[in-house]
């Protein structure tokens, strides 16, 4: 690591002296240093040559075009994100609203069906008034029975089936 720091010129003065005196007596470290230099050349020189030769054709124009395109797209995307947000908002409102409505319907249905008069399916078929008896005829659906109700007076009722 110290050799690499030396190679990268990141050593202190005392470290530099230490490495340089060591290098005089160590062929392995000299080779390692040489390899690092060669590797750097392999990596760096082609890049430098390419950069030197490059004339950056139309790069700035393309950047300007890209920025213009982003601005145009920005308008659309903000509209789209507003719509998305609205949809999400609607979804957030509608889901609990529908759930509440369903619960209310369920409760109401229970109340309505419980309060429906349990007339056992009886319906008035006919009502006749006469000087003697008033008669009411009921028809029951279940069981299938016809009820004839005779009214003798305000207090008396007779039933015949």
């Amino acid at each position: 690591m110290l050799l690499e720091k030396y190679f990268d010129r990141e050593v202190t003065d005392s470290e530099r002296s230490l490495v340089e005196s060591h290098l005089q007596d160590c062929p392995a470290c000299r080779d390692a240093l040489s390899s690092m230099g060669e590797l750097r050349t392999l990596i760096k020189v082609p890049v430098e040559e390419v950069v030197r030769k490059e004339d950056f054709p139309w790069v700035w124009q393309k950047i300007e075009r890209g920025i213009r395109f982003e601005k145009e797209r920005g308008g659309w995307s903000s509209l789209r994100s507003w719509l998305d947000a609205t949809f999400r908002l609607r979804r957030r409102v509608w889901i609990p609203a529908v759930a509440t409505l369903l619960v209310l319907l369920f409760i109401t249905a229970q109340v309505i069906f419980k309060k429906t008069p349990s007339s056992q399916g009886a319906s008035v078929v006919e009502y006749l008034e006469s000087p003697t008896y008033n008669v009411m005829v009921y028809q029951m659906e279940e069981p299938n029975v016809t009820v004839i109700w005779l009214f003798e007076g305000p207090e008396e009722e007779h039933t015949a089936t």
Partner: protein
Amino acid sequence: MDHEEIDMISRCQEGDQEALREIFDKYHKKVYSIAYGVVRQREEALDIVQEVFIKLFRSIKNFRGKSQFYTYLYRMAMNTAIDHTRKAGKQVTSSLDAEGSFEPSDEPEKGPERILLQKELEERVKLAMDSLPPEQKAAIVFRDVEGLSYQEMAEAMGCSIGTVMSRLHYGRKRMQESLKDYVKFRGQSRGASLPSEE
């Protein structure tokens, strides 16, 4: 940062495209060399330059001046270049005739054999770089191509100096392993070299 640069950045933060042009004029070669150092392909590197400056214009508002502006920009360039290699990384080619790669053929002093060798060498370097993990690749490009100090690298890479040294060390080790024939050849032909001047 000097006053001129601070002014340039704050104008750009307000959406001034002319200020972006000034930043482009000042830094496009550096951004290009980072991009080329990573992807080693001309057309792709030019696309990266374009992408980096568009991104910069969009996100420069987030630059708070806590670090040097160039390390902020280099980091953006490096991340964009590495994203490109990730997307295209699966298409690594071993062809020596890869279109757009470094072409030294317009240099009349070099013979055909030399040109071929150089082309092959460049392709091997590209393959070796492609095989590195992104962090090690970034460390090598920042140090060996751009010549950044460890401190500047730590800033650009968002890590400690110790991590920078470690990434550099392992990256170089892997590169030397991949290119050992070429490194050895060049080493023998030229002899030991002292640290190069940047």
